[in-house]
């Protein structure tokens, strides 16, 4: 193993979450990209590597990323890549790229417009195409199975879910519990508020990061893992993928002050808290997390950006950003950030 390069987040911005954006995806991204660059005192031409994230099924047309490339001003040509995954994986790719020493800055951006599709239907398209997709099992139904597994194993109650939702959304857990189920045992407050949004993060290496940002958020560790896909072959009450990603990124090496979790459903926070070994001393998802705003594809990158801002602006010392993908928290990415 080679010594790891010091890499930090030096700029982050997101477009304000909305639902029903009228502009193109590229137009939606412009303010976030401009602001992230401005925060790092950089221009597009200064960036050594860019990586984007988008998903064609959100808008129903192929090559969303060919359109959003226009936000980079890629002329002259740039070194750029794209993942059809949450933007947190684009950040991972950029982090890997920055280890090579030939460049010292990178920018990552992600966009998702959920208001133009029926996400519950579209979400079924990421499932096993033979056994699951033809049943059109939607994301809320699969999440409800995981939530019920927690209840049946006595790890949680519906009240626990409502309390998490009340903490994040503001409100009264008792009132939440009077609402009807969407898919039992999940109520509307337990399911994510779907939104449209984009986010951008600027990364820099070593002294360059210190030069660009008064208090860079250093990536102390980052790792991602998957579970097996089919829900009938897994224990849904735990997340091995999050546990291993947490271990590999060094979550347990010190106290985490703030954890921004991509828990799209209130019960997922419980699964993740256990997998990552978070204690009551950790403030979880003060931004509202993925429950309060879920611009699919940007959601995880926003978590990392929010965790970084806790250091850059908030003066915290050690935070964590998390991203997930797939049904029932199948894939998890953990990014541990530290201030100097």
């Amino acid at each position, binding site marked *: 193993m080679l010594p790891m390069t010091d890499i930090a987040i030096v700029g982050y911005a997101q477009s304000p979450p909305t*639902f*029903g954006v009228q502009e193109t995806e590229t137009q939606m991204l412009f303010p976030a990209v401009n602001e992230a660059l401005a925060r790092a005192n950089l221009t597009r031409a200064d960036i050594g590597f860019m990586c984007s994230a988008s998903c064609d099924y959100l808008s*129903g047309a192929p090559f969303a990323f060919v359109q959003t490339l226009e936000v980079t001003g890629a002329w002259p040509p740039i070194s750029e890549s794209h993942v059809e995954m949450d933007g947190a994986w684009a950040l991972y790719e950029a982090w890997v790229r920055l280890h090579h020493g030939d460049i010292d800055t990178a920018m990552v951006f992600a966009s998702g417009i959920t*208001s*133009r*599709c*029926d*996400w*519950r*239907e579209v979400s*079924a398209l990421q499932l096993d*195409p*033979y*056994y*699951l997709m*033809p*049943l*059109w*099992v*939607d994301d809320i*139904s699969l999440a*409800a*199975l995981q*939530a*019920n*597994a927690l209840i*049946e194993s006595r790890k949680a109650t519906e009240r626990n879910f409502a309390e998490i939702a009340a903490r994040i959304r503001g409100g009264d857990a008792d009132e939440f519990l009077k609402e*009807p*189920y*969407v*898919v*039992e*045992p*999940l109520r509307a407050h337990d399911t994510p508020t779907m939104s449209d949004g984009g986010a951008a993060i600027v990364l820099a290496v070593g002294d360059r990061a210190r030069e660009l940002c008064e208090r860079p958020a250093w990536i102390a560790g980052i790792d991602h893992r998957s579970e*097996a*896909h*089919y*829900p*009938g*072959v*897994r224990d*849904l009450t735990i997340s091995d993928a999050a546990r291993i990603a947490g271990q590999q990124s060094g979550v347990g090496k010190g106290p985490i002050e703030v954890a921004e979790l991509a828990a799209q459903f209130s019960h997922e926070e419980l699964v993740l808290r256990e997998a990552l070994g978070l204690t009551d001393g950790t403030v979880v998802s003060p931004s509202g997390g993925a429950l309060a705003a879920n611009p699919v594809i940007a959601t995880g990158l926003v978590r990392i950006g929010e965790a970084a801002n806790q250091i850059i602006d908030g003066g915290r010392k050690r935070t964590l950003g998390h991203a997930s993908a797939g049904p029932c928290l199948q894939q998890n990415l953990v990014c541990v950030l530290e201030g100097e």
Partner: protein
Amino acid sequence: MAAGPSWTLEFPYRRSLGPVVGEFFTGLRDGKVLGSRTKGGKVLVPPLEYDPETGEAVQDGFVEVAETGVVHNWAWVNEPLRKHPLDRPFAWALVRLDGADSSLLHAVDAPRDKVETGMRVKIRWREERKGHITDIECFEAV
């Protein structure tokens, strides 16, 4: 989806199934349920071509399991979506068929108060079967 005019994207697909999914679907068409067996001896229903824990290929051959089993986990859908397998309230369930070591996800057609973990269920076969996961119309109480 936000309000306003919409259009429908329609893509027809024709999926080749391969030796394992194809055998399973052939079995469903003929009214029987087949599982695959991992090197470690676990019986997977529905069958995968690989051990989900290791990625290793499953053993040659198939194991027939029962059309009855136990609900291992469930979630109640009071308002089915238009594409869900049933158009009335139903439960999604992870059903462990007798003889299998993994659970099959499908719909259970039963009243809400009958659905619980541990519930015994059996396959309700579709009358016109073609070799498809929906040849199992749903599960019902034994």
